[in-house]
């Protein structure tokens, strides 16, 4: 629809620019704060112009929070979570869409219901399981047979602990299910006639076709995993497994320390960088995967 309405156009632009400022404003404040010295950042009123201490603040943040290893830990965790979520989502949606099991709707709705149970809600039981993975198995075997086993597997302070409990994803499963449902049945039938068994069909046909979908999911899930705070905080007590988000807390000033907000903001900028790069690199796919499916 093309309309010539100068006044309406101006109003539209005004609203859009206002929205943009609302979103960008805080970022600008983070940036300027990270460039100022301790005295400047605590001045009232706050100075919106950049200062000269940017590099110094970045270095201070990097060393004080030990961001090098922490960023690496975060990267490993986020990539593993991302891959895990994609693998799990694509496979479970495959099972739900392509297998005529009588219980598939039940399973789908069970998965769907977990949308209502985010990690924060189930954090205590999830922690229990992570701290003692075989507890339910031991209990089951003991109740059934009376045999007491001493199986132990503890996920605390490990990458599996950071990753495994959070890779189940209702969003991803749902996204994949919608994608599979847009594919024509004849594609499946053609593959059947060509002799492909289900797994072969999944690997040769479905996965390559879901590329845009997969990249969209990868973007969302990487950012999600990178931004995790609560779970890594619970799971890791050793500095070796500390993630960037957790490390960031050491930069936040407390009652007994100097109000070095310039350093915390510099740290925030560093930590923000990897998700920004991922989104920038994948945004074309991200939008395409969410908006439409490739033919």
């Amino acid at each position, binding site marked *: 629809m093309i309309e010539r309405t100068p006044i309406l156009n101006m109003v539209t632009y005004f609203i859009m620019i206002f929205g943009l400022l609302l979103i960008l404003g805080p970022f600008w404040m983070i940036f300027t704060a990270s460039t100022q010295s301790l005295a400047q950042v605590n001045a009232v009123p706050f100075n919106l112009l950049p200062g000269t201490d940017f590099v110094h603040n970045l270095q201070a943040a990097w060393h004080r929070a030990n961001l090098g290893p922490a960023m690496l830990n975060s990267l490993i965790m986020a990539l593993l979570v991302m891959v895990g979520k994609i693998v799990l989502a694509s496979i479970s949606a495959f099972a739900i869409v392509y297998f005529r099991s009588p219980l598939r709707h039940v399973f789908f709705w069970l998965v769907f219901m977990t949308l209502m149970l985010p990690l924060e809600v189930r954090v205590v039981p999830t922690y229990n399981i992570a701290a003692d993975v075989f507890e339910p198995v031991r209990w089951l075997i003991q109740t059934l047979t009376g045999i007491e086993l001493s199986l132990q597997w503890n996920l605390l302070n490990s990458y599996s602990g950071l990753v495994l409990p959070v890779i189940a994803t209702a969003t991803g499963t749902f996204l994949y299910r919608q994608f599979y449902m847009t594919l024509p049945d004849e594609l499946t039938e053609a593959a059947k*006639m060509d002799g492909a068994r289900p797994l072969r069909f999944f690997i040769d046909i479905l996965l*390559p076709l879901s590329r845009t979908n997969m990249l969209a999911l990868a973007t969302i899930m990487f950012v999600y995993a990178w931004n995790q705070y609560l779970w890594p905080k619970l799971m890791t007590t050793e500095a070796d497994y500390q993630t960037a988000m957790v490390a960031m807390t050491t930069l936040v000033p407390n009652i007994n320390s100097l109000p070095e907000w310039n350093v915390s903001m510099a740290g925030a900028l560093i930590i923000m960088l990897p998700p920004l790069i991922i989104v920038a690199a994948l945004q074309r796919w991200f939008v395409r995967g969410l908006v439409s499916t490739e033919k």
Partner: protein
Amino acid sequence: MAEINIRNVRKSYGRTQILHGVDLDFKSGEFVVILGPSGCGKSTLLRMIAGLEEISAGEISIDGTVVNNLEPRDRGCSMVFQNYALYPHMNVAANIGYALKVAGVPRAERDRRISETARVVGLEEMLDRKPAQLSGGQRQRVAMGRAIIREPKVFLFDEPLSNLDAKLRVQMRVEIRRLHKRLSATSVFVTHDQVEAMTLADKLIVMNKGHVEQVGTPLEIYHRPRTRFVGTFIGSPAMNFFDSTIAPSGKFVLLDGIQIAIDPVLGRDNADNAVSAGIRPEHCRLVKAGTANSVPATVDFVEELGSGRNVHVDIDGTIFAVSGDESQLFETGATVGLQLPSEHIHLFSRDTGLRLDDAPALKHNTNQSTVAA
């Protein structure tokens, strides 16, 4: 090359029956066309042969082996789908060769067979393209290449030409026929297009509402439709029908009060029967009004075809289509005479819809039931 035998095959979804006991035998190397209106169960039958649809009751065997419980890959059939169903992310070569890749055929042999197949279907120049970069006819060729590379015992075609434009359709029809001659595998082709059916078939099967109406060569079916339905379904314009009763003498039926002579032997055996009499448009003759043995009719409208014209005339509310030749000109609204030659009149029972003199078709039926028993 393989025989296909279909024994009392039924299909139902819950309580709805789609196929009500179908018995058919396809000879090895035959080109069989299944023709019928949409919803008659023809595609379902084809998909049951392919193994894509479960068989509710009865038995299908290919080359003597009952295939009811075999997976599609073990039946030795390949199929061409209506919308081609090409793999969008693979190029033409990969599409054609996918079955071989799945079967674990070594690369060198696979490439050799792909280029050989591409030559047969005329796609040598296109092997690197993706399906999205191909025209409808080329996609159709890829689908056929994919079907023939496996050297199957049976080819199944599920309305493969219905997405093509008229010109391409004629061309692909010829190509399919040529391909069949060359490969001589048993082929089953499902369509709702009677021209496709007539031109392609060695054996034509007409289906309606889950029943087989008639089996025969295209000419047999055209000239001796076994039921009223087959008569109406095949031929364009469709066969003209009027309801009447055979006179006690058995010599004629009445149309608008005028006696139309019929085969006297047939008439004598069926005297006083309520019948539906049919005659094809090309067998009707238009004459001057008042000519002896003609029924007065009003010209309703005229369709010009170039090579001739279809004249639609009205007799007391019943419309008759007549294939006129170009020498005769008729004005809309003019009164003419319509002659219906007795040797071209088909008589069907009004109760059962069956042809009255259905000797050959009846024999066919009894044959089948003895085999089935």
